[in-house]
């Protein structure tokens, strides 16, 4: 039961990594490198396109394939867990943006709630290719990924994943195109509606106004931690407002000026809401 700490799984699975790398080579020759295959997670750096175009944004991604019932985490992991973290090593002039997090899933683990991903998931990252990248050269892209994969138990992992891509004016889709398309479709869209957050006793209410509000809202996920409790919000239409009511987090100190949350509907469409807080809390937490 006692799992080795940190990088050990990676080391232990070197044999399997080679096996996986060899198997992959037979299928695709570009746009991804060796997957790291852990007992509960396969992790790989992949590209949506077969080449990098100078002056353009290239979409790379971390492909995560979880063993059944295992999951990794969203930017707000919930009551326990850790978000997956990336640290890039790129050629001069290249810059990587933040992970474009797809809307998470809710995992109820007894008394704890977690937010994250299971099955096969992709965490897309935009990489800016410099305008002066020389055509017909190859770029070596590397990322150190740190993750926590959990079922009932959790196992931390760390690996450096690499990808060599040619620099070219034209490129083709890679076999990962569908995965990127799916990740893009499950990304929260900027919400066109104004929203306001207010403190109401031990609850936090988010009021969303406007036309064409989601007809079948299903769930809400706070981006910032320590604001609302992680149980699902109560969602209702009230006086043409969409009202999301959360319990306050046990670790709440103040409403952020702008509280960000993801609203998910029954058709798996999602929006990123920025709720302005007009009211300041009446008294600061005396224990902080």
């Amino acid at each position: 039961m006692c799992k080795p700490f940190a990088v050990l799984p990676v080391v232990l699975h070197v044999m399997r990594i080679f096996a996986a790398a060899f198997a992959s080579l037979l299928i695709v020759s570009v746009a991804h490198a060796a997957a790291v295959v852990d007992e509960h997670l396969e992790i790989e750096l992949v590209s949506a396109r077969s080449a990098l175009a100078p002056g353009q944004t290239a979409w790379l991604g971390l492909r995560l394939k979880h063993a059944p019932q295992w999951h990794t985490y969203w930017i707000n992991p919930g009551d326990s867990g850790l978000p997956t973290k990336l640290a890039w090593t790129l050629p001069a002039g290249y810059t990587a943006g933040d992970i474009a997090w797809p809307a998470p899933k809710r995992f109820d683990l007894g008394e704890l709630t977690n937010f994250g991903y299971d099955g096969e998931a992709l965490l897309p990252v935009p990489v800016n290719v410099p305008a002066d990248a020389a055509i017909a050269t190859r770029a070596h892209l590397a990322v150190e990924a740190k993750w926590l994969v959990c079922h009932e138990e959790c196992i931390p992992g760390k690996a450096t994943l690499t990808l060599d891509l040619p620099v070219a004016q034209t490129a083709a889709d890679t076999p990962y195109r569908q995965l990127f398309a799916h990740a893009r479709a499950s990304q929260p869209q900027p919400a066109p509606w104004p929203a306001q957050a207010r403190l109401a006793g031990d609850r936090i209410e988010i009021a969303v106004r406007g036309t064409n509000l989601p007809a079948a809202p299903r769930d809400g996920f706070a981006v910032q931690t320590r604001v609302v409790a992680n149980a699902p919000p109560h969602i209702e239409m009230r006086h043409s407002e969409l009202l999301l009511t959360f319990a306050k987090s046990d670790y709440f100190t103040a409403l952020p000026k702008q509280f960000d949350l993801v609203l998910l509907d029954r058709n798996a469409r999602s929006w990123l809401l920025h709720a302005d807080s007009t009211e300041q809390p009446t008294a600061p937490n005396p224990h902080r």
Partner: protein
Amino acid sequence: MSLRISILVAIVATVVNSGAFAAAAIGSAAPDFSLPDASGKTQTLSQYKGKTVVLEWNNPGCPFVQKHYSSGNIPKQQVDATAAGVVWLTINSGATGKQGHLDTQGAQAFIAQYHAAPSAYLFDGDGKVGHLYGAKTTPHMYIIDASGTLRYMGGIDSIPSTDKDDLAKATQYVPQALAELKAGKPVSIATSEPYGCGVKYGP
């Protein structure tokens, strides 16, 4: 009678989870309890009135706990605290068959392996005390002052990770609060969000 007790525990657990009211609250009397320890004795919180008591929720199989033990962080905090007269009670609320559940021999071996120095290692296999305190994760830390008042509840430190490299940059909340209590100062950070593995409570 036992049915009534289990209903009561269920209610307490529900209330703690709802966040509406915590059985263990900063500034309030810490709930009393009695639990068996790894040396076969019974440890009762109220027997330590007059001393500062640290409660540490533990699961030796949890990578977050392993970070703080294999690095020596928690063992050092235990050594320093107990040398200063503080009572350190490590509590395992893991149910039988769950990760990190230990018997007395297992607990003694765990303590020896990491040169840990808790005053006692307590078993709470039915999770009653864990629920009473609202312990969510391992580690999850509580400090009770000499008068029996809860003065700190929360994480072991300020950087949620399983990475030992983060220890040097993190604020260690327990030694900080213990030093403030000893100096007669208010505890500057009395609550924090705990991080770690979920406590492996039984069904």
